């Protein structure tokens, strides 16, 4: 499946290798993995904290659009999740 063909009905979940956690001292969400850390920016955090293994990408987009009172976020979310998939931060089911 190429990046542009990511199925928005699929359900993203944080990959077993990673742990998503809020760090008080850094005032941000981070992804932890063996001997490393990715500090997440606010929009990445909004998306990844919703990758809970229950909501589909469509659900996440709907929820974000409602939370941000904005429409047309789908392309950005899909772009980010495609990249996250490539980085192996998430898996899809």
């Amino acid at each position: 499946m190429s990046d542009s063909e990511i199925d928005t009905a699929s359900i993203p979940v944080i990959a077993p290798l990673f742990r998503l956690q809020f760090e008080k001292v850094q005032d941000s969400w981070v992804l932890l993995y063996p001997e490393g850390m990715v500090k997440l920016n606010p929009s990445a955090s909004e998306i990844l904290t919703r990758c809970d293994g229950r909501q589909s990408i469509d659900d996440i987009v709907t929820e974000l659009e409602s939370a941000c009172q904005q429409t047309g976020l789908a392309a950005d979310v899909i772009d980010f999740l495609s990249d996250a998939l490539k980085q192996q931060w998430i898996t899809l089911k």
Partner: protein
Amino acid sequence: MDNAEVTSPDTADITPGPPLWLLAELTYRCPLHCAFCFNPVDYARHESELDTDSWIRVLQQARALGSVQCGFSGGEPMLRDDLEELVGEARSLGYYTNLLTSGVGLNEKRARALKDAGLDHVQLSFQDSTRELNDFLSNTKTWKLKNQVASLIKEHEWPMVLNCVIHRMNIDYIDKIIEMAIDLGAEHLELANAQYYSWARVNRDHLLPSKEQIVRAEEVTARYREKYAERIRIIFVVPDYYESRPKKCMNGWGNVFLTITPDGTALPCHTARMLPGLEFPSVADHSVESIWYESEGFNRYRGKGWMKEPCRSCSEQDDDLGGCRCQAFMLAGDPAAADPVCTKSPQRAVVDAALDKAQLPDAELAPSQPLVFRDPKASRQLSRD
């Protein structure tokens, strides 16, 4: 651990960020006798070890400062029978917990206890893939055991990083090492050339590969990387002697890394104790906060204020912060000098001389001494030299 991918805040001269990476060297005791061990050559002079309560206090204090990655290392950390308790404490404090082990002592019972304690990740070190060479290099019979341990790691669903120290004597078998890692199901493979500190510095003549060996190993690695991209990530670290600019050691002195040695001495890296004229504080006497932010040992080489020429006026000073203070001391005799790996260093000739020697065929190498295996007797001998 120089290649650890920890993102760091910008290096400021005044206020450092938190010690994101805490390396807990629980013990210098080890059943292996690796000729490239990164423990200090005089480790036998520092035999005392912090007790469980002291380690727990260190874990709590560092976590409060913002430490988030915790490595349990050694020596062989499995030799501490309170390892499970310390891992459990670290995990409940919110650390990502990493166990760096040779695998000796990691049996089914302890693996289960570590899983229950919340251990996140095991990095298993291999000396080589061929039994004979492995036993020679680690000087003990451990190859079969490591295969069993690798199975335990998979069974308990830990991400597995295999680490194999690469050097002149095993670099030509790098294809076998990679195939072994794939067979064992490792997600990551670190093929890190020995860094020439501590025991590897003593044994450098035996360990430094030739240029030809490195080029070939890189080609082989690239081939496997392409073929198995989906299954395994392979990191190959060239010896910094072959670079023209030094590494940004520890991502900056006192910037990200905090090492606590078995006796409680706090260091900006695991070899910094070798540096002359610097007192490093102990967690027995000071809080981690005062050690990290206020101690002379941690402040001395922070930022760039300590730099001499050619670093002081160098346009690349932010890229590498002058390289490694320990290497500068070992090769240039001055911890504030430019790391002699840099071709701008007036002492680069020292590195080139070592490289020239490494290009000789083995038969003509004539090392200055036989290979020295790490053990307490050799350590006491080297402490006297």
